[in-house]
């Protein structure tokens, strides 16, 4: 299922917030520093249609959430990083199941790509079994 370019930008901004750069001395690289585009492309091309539909709905919901969560007529993309954290923190603590599952979905998916990179594993002293990056990362790096 193809996402529009603007939707991919929204997705990127959510992943960048969930897995930020420079937030950890051990893991200075965040989602923005790895070729996560390749991962997103690959995921959306191969995941079941229902999953992709859900992902798209969640992307829109988080993008428009600042209005409800912060009372600010801005998209998630247009917020400062601190306000983005606030939005996701409020959502993940929500008593409404579907609302609190949204940040978790992006954390799960983001970590599935990010955590699978040998260089990220090496930073955590996990001996990578694969000598090369996954296929999506090699493709993402080329583009």
């Amino acid at each position: 299922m193809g996402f529009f370019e603007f939707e991919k930008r929204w997705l990127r901004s959510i992943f960048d917030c969930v897995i930020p750069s420079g937030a950890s001395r051990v893991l200075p690289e965040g989602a923005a520093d790895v070729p996560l585009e390749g991962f997103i492309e690959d995921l959306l091309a191969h995941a079941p249609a229902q999953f992709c539909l859900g992902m798209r709905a969640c992307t829109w919901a988080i993008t428009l959430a600042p209005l409800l969560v912060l009372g600010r007529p801005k998209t998630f993309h247009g917020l400062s990083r601190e306000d983005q954290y606030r939005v996701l923190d409020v959502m993940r603590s929500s008593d409404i199941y579907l609302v609190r599952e949204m940040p978790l979905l992006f954390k799960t998916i983001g970590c599935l790509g990010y955590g699978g990179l040998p260089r990220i594993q090496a930073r955590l002293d996990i001996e990578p079994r694969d000598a090369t990056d996954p296929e999506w990362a090699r493709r993402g790096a080329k583009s």
Partner: protein
Amino acid sequence: MSRAQGSSRQGIQCLADVQGQALVEDGADVVIIGSGAAGATAARVLTDAGLDVILVEEGAHIPTEQLRSDAYSSFKHLWRDMGFQVAEGRAFTPVLQGRAVGGTTVVNGAIIHRLPEPIYDLWAAEHAVDRSFGYRELTDIFDQLDKELHVGPAPDAVFGANNQLMQLGVEGIGAQGNRIRRNVKGCQGSAHCNQGCPTGRKQSMDVSYVPRALERGARLYAQCRAETIHSKSGRVSGVRGRFIDPVTRQKGPRFAFHGRRAVVLCASAIQTPQLLQANGFGRASQLVGERLQCHPGTGVVGVFDNPVKLSFGATQGFETTHFWHERMKFESVAMPLEFAAARLPGIGPELMHELESFNHLAIWGVQVRARALGSVHKSLFGAAKIQYDMLDSDIEILKLGVQRLIRMMFAAGARQVLPGVHGLPDRIDSPDEAERLFRLPNDPRLFHCIAAHLFGTAKLGLSKHSSVVDLNCQVHDAPGLYVFDSSVFPTNMGVNPQHSICALSWLMSERLASRRR
């Protein structure tokens, strides 16, 4: 994991091998749908008995040397729906199944258990299973399976700290546990059982019974989706479908495989009932796809001062069945970074900080022998529509299980425990804090469960009005059509089912082989 090449192994044909053909046709004594625990075991027994066998597998054949260790590659190539298959209820519950040559045995934790005798007794009392086979018959098969699949506990050298700590934790709460009996020959402790064993040591069906059957003349067609079961003169005589790459969805030729003696469904408790439904079999009982049972489970993370290193050791090496009679079982589970990260609290800098402590995390899980019944039907999207919702009584057991896991973690010396339950703090510092669990409502949405081990959607029994298959696992209203997978189990069993599935398939395959045409 390249999909462009044809299969490298003699006896296996995949999409690339048949591309360009209009129709792929073949015939054998028995056509088996599915190459997991049930299908591969059936192929092993039937070929040993001298029968000609065709195995039909929807997933691809991924040789060990082509496996990648990252979880996403594994999801994409080895797991059904890339691991995103879910059951719908009040909560969305991931339903984990393999889809590859070897089925779920390729991605499971290699845990071996025999059918518990109290479960056999229950099946005998309520479902007349004793009129089909005695427990002694199963025991003999279990012994044989143990030998052939190299079943035994993980040796000290590769046991790993996650398992050692669980042993401490179990003993610390006054329970008894044991090293898990695993079907692994010379485990290297790579902690990658769930991504496909990178050293080929796990004796999953793709490296054990499938090759054995191929050596005895079986043919395996991979990337083949079975669609219709056809009959001749009132007897099921074959299966038709299409080659299709499950990852790229690229379509290939149609196929028609003829089974002179039988067609055996071993496609799992999710796919088998869908095939039966699509072809109108088992209608009299109205039970096809109903009575789905499973073992919902969840995990608890402990943070330890000393390194644990989840990336080394037997993936699942220690367990306790001490509380089995209370419908719960506990086991260690080494998750890769990708899965563990999602289980950690926080977003942004908080998450990154948590990730730094990855090597200090231990993860153990509880699985519940739930009483809930779900169902499986085909959805509008063509995939399985699985409905499942734990009962209040199941959730009460789950809560007690999580509380016990938390107590075990602290008993083993955890500095902090991350319970992963909505309504509890992200981090708790003492076992007493876990008591708050019992003040929470019985709501499955508070937990993050997965559903593994699936049963009951084509149960066996005496009458076509109260069961789908007879006591020889032949579909009541379809002579020549059999089901040998866990769909026929009348209930769940509270322990990991691979060995019981193999044993039942073995027993029924022997009967099929000895039956005159």
